[in-house]
């Protein structure tokens, strides 16, 4: 997971598609919308979307292994939900349809994520007059996400160094303590962030 985070930052730098972030966001939205709303069992349509997305992915020189890793994160989940349809009559075709459809949409989102920096997306959202409080929250979440994940990894490593692997109810308790501690640190950090924001002239 941490490797994926790392990739997420690295991958945006050497990618070729340099268009306006808002345009890319809208194109991705359009692609996902058409794929999601194509009539059921319209296999030719899926094929067209798949080829064009593959072309774009090749054009953007997306790292193949990275792409597969991202897909693997998603596949078991979609299989689980789509698997429910297998229990109903004529479910096998519906299952195939849903699985292909959702996979194609994920391709489009991965393409967007790889070619566009999230801060650019946020900037274009701000231009679209999305409420400021919401943008502030999104920005702060994105900024501190990686910091907190790192902190969590350090907690886990420190605990693994010092204790045996806890089992049963004890492991739950240990997990609860770690998460509680992480929140304490988060709240303290939020105080510091607020002071820093005020020092730089932030107003609600």
């Amino acid at each position: 997971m941490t490797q994926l985070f790392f990739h997420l930052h690295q991958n945006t730098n050497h990618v070729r598609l340099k268009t306006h972030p808002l345009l890319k966001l809208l194109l991705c939205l359009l692609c996902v919308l058409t794929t999601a709303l194509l009539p059921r069992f319209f296999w030719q349509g899926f094929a067209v979307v798949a080829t064009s997305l593959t072309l774009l992915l090749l054009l953007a020189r997306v790292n193949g292994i990275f792409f597969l890793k991202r897909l693997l994160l998603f596949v078991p989940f979609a299989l689980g939900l789509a698997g429910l349809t297998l229990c109903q009559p004529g479910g096998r075709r519906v299952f195939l349809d849903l699985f292909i459809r959702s996979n194609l949409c994920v391709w489009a989102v991965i393409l967007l994520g790889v070619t566009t920096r999230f801060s650019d997306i946020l900037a274009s959202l701000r231009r679209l007059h999305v409420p400021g409080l919401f943008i502030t929250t999104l920005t702060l979440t994105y900024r501190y996400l990686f910091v907190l994940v790192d902190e969590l990894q350090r907690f886990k490593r420190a605990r693994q160094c010092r204790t045996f692997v806890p089992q049963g109810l004890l492991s739950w308790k240990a997990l609860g303590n770690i998460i509680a501690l992480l929140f304490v640190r988060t709240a303290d950090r939020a105080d510091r962030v607020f002071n820093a924001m005020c020092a730089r002239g932030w107003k609600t």
Partner: protein
Amino acid sequence: MHIPDGFIDAKTAITTFSLSAIGLTLSLRQVRKTYPPQKIPLIGLTAAFIFAAQMLNFPVAGGTSGHLIGAVLASILLGPSAAILAMSTVLILQCLLFADGGITALGANVFVLGIVAPLVGHTVYRVCLLLCQPRAHAHFVATAAAGWVSTVSAAIVCAGLLALSNTVDWGIAFPAMAGVHALIGMGEALITSLIITALLRIRPELVTSHDRPCPALNSRALAPYGLLISAGLVLFVAPFACGWPDGLEKVAGTLGFEHFAKAVTMPTTLFADYTTPWLSTAFLSTVLAGTVGVITVFGFSYLCLLAIKKRADS
């Protein structure tokens, strides 16, 4: 419970998007009005915290593992309005950065996990806390109940959305989602209450200080959210409620005193068997009957609450 793209059809997507937009606007307005400014960065950081905490797996029976959903945790730590904001942020980031949950299904995911789960959780938490307050383990019990109820209710709404989109039949989606999430909910309940107990031990002010922006069961602040969730229930779950006779009707049929009931039925009943007589489509008429029912019950309970409050004040 993140619904991917392609599982939600156009009408469901549009409905959920508008309901989520209303919910988000309400929560933004409430946060701006009632939240102390120095706590605003905490919303964003708590969203990041929940995101990070969701990555820790805990062991569930049989070698599988689940992870925290965090809706109840957010609503206890931040209060309901800010929790809606934080959870929606988490969902949007997961959708755009990790392709976890689809873009067309974003409205549905925000409604289920960002609005229904924290609000139901918060209400259950408050009510349980009021009921077992003097006891030592009040917070533990209240958090556990809130965790379980919010997970299961979110799963039921999710099943309703899938059935409404004609993706999965209600007969399969409901037992599968509710059954699996009844188990997941137990894990969620245990881990959330362990976190809250640990927090109460190390830094109790972090759990209790956020009561002030939204005091205990503030009916005026919670009322619009209650209406929103009822609208969701009427739209997504009511159409699939079972058409079989309920327990009493069944007993009446078996024991043969059904005709007594028929004889005393009031001729002026407006919505017999939850349908509107002058509407032909079954779906629309159930929804309309449900809406009228919800508004009536809502108005009645609101009046009751006002009366109780007046008596308590005097």
